């Protein structure tokens, strides 16, 4: 039984030593070799005096080395802190200081950033890199792990506030990834193309879930050219691709996806943001025989909470389906009472996947966790079949002239207009109305759509209070390092 993260790698090294664990460019690394790298680095950490529970930062792109390091940190009994390398040194050092990182694994190309980080932090005792994964260090004993042992701290996106690190235990990550394996029917022959970084819990879950079954992770960093990604799927006979909505919008509008058959590909996965229903339907229509998993999760839930059965996508795109195995979802009103069918309320979640809390932050922990239930801050409802629909973030709701509307409702509608690539609705303070709606759009290449046509479409399809007063056509939608739209940076435009 694979109880802990590092057991996954060592177990595969015994059962299928020559099967390929990771493909990175021309490198194909079998489980046996990955296990050796993991053991070498874990031994080095123990030999260097790291104690159980110490935090180890990971500052690296997805690579064989950084993935081996992630599992080595677990084997050494320490807590991994995958750092968002797209942030600047100042922002990363806030996270590193918040959880008192005592050593750091540095991937190729991050040496200068690492030096800056060591200078700015108080606790880093030593730095490691890929070299320590090839040295033959051996220690006789590794610290024992327990189900409740802290395994990873994942900082949630957002750089303005004090960093908020979700503390996930071995049990959180293992139980959630086992449930992912089950609903996605993953098996050892599966090969996932991974474009998402492992400091993002969605990217991390792809690695863990595919390793649980002894599958292969294909590291791909060239998504900027969507056709190159499609070539990689064909070249490596990938069986799965996972992305956020923007990845799919780019694939549908900036690649020749429609002309490809991708015979090896069995499933598409989407999470991290809401997939506009029309985008999901277009994809499902293009590839009716492939499974499209529309999923919902949060870092605090390790991350998966629910998924929509792929057979329901043509009929129910827009829903995030039912809770995964071992997870309960209750929609509650402001008094904490469970909502009736169709009634909107806050989505709360309970299960073995819910984080232990936010690192060193009891105030935020007590706001998010109440009697074992995670209060997600997402507003949604369940339909008569029990499928969950998310209507928006609690804090994003806009009040206009006494009416409440979620930006997501407006964005879903606008995304149906032909020629729209991506869109964001934001509200701004207005001296008369209280709030005023502004819509930011990008157009698909070659579209001649004009502002007036967009406003006319909104007037025909949205309630009067939901019609944006201003429409701004942007050349590019600003994105954060995870590829999600950076809504706040639009406020200055």
């Amino acid at each position, binding site marked *: 039984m694979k109880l802990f993260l590092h057991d996954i790698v060592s177990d595969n090294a015994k059962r299928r030593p020559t099967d390929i664990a990771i493909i990175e460019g021309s490198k194909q690394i079998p489980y046996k070799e990955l296990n050796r790298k993991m053991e070498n680095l874990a031994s080095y950490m123990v030999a260097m005096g790291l104690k159980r529970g110490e935090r180890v930062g990971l500052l690296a792109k997805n690579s064989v080395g950084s993935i081996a390091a992630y599992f080595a940190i677990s084997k050494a009994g320490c807590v991994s802190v995958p750092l968002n390398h797209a942030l600047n040194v100042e922002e990363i050092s806030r996270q590193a200081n918040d959880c008192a990182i005592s050593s750091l694994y540095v991937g190729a*190309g991050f040496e200068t950033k690492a030096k800056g980080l060591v200078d700015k932090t108080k606790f880093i005792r030593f730095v490691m890199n890929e070299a320590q994964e090839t040295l033959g260090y051996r220690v006789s004993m590794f610290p024992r792990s327990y189900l409740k042992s802290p395994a990873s701290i994942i900082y949630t996106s957002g750089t303005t506030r004090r960093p908020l690190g979700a503390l996930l235990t071995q049990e959180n990550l293992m139980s959630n990834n086992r449930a992912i394996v089950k609903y996605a029917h993953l098996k050892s022959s599966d090969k996932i193309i991974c474009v998402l970084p492992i400091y993002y819990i969605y990217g991390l879950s792809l690695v863990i879930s595919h390793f649980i079954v002894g599958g292969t992770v294909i590291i791909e*960093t*060239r*998504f*900027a*050219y*969507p*056709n*190159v990604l499609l070539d990689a799927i064909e070249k490596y006979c990938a069986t799965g691709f996972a992305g956020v909505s*923007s990845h799919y919008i*780019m694939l549908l*509008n*900036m*690649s*020749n996806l429609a002309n490809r058959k991708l015979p090896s590909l069995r499933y598409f996965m989407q999470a991290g943001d809401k997939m506009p229903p029309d985008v999901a339907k277009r994809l499902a229509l293009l590839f009716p025989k492939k499974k499209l998993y529309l999923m919902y999760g949060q870092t605090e839930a390790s991350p998966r909470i629910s998924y929509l059965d792929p057979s329901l996508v043509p009929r129910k795109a827009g829903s995030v389906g039912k809770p995964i195995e071992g997870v309960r979802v209750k929609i509650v009103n402001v008094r904490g009472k469970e909502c009736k069918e169709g009634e909107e309320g806050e989505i709360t979640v309970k299960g073995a996947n819910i984080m232990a809390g936010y690192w060193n932050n009891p105030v935020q922990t007590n706001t998010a966790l109440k009697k074992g239930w995670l209060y997600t801050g997402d507003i949604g409802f369940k339909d008569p079949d029990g499928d969950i629909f998310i209507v928006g973030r609690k804090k994003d709701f806009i009040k206009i002239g006494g009416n409440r509307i979620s930006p997501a409702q407006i964005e879903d509608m606008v995304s149906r207009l032909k020629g729209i690539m991506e869109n964001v609705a934001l509200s701004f303070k207005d001296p008369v109305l209280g709030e005023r709606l502004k819509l930011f759009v990008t157009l698909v*290449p070659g579209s001649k759509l004009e502002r007036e046509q967009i406003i006319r479409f909104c007037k025909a399809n949205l309630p009067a209070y939901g019609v944006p007063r201003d429409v701004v056509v942007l*050349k*590019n*939608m*600003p*994105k954060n390092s995870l*590829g999600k739209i950076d809504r706040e940076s639009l406020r200055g435009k």
Partner: protein
Amino acid sequence: MKEILKKFIIDNYLLGSGDIKDDDSFLDNGIIDSIGVIELTNFIQDKFKIKITVPEIIPENLDTLNNLERYITRKLKSSK
């Protein structure tokens, strides 16, 4: 032409500092991401008055200063 492209890359992605060699890959050196590629294609279309089609958005055309120059020269010739 190469100088115009180089200036655009340095001003927009290297924040005005640093240098880039003619054969440096923008992607491999972490200079450009997916949004960067969209910005770059918009810039080229506006500046050189050419139309970039979807199948042309590949590293062989766009990922180094040399590739860009070759690609744009070819496009300009074929549009005459």
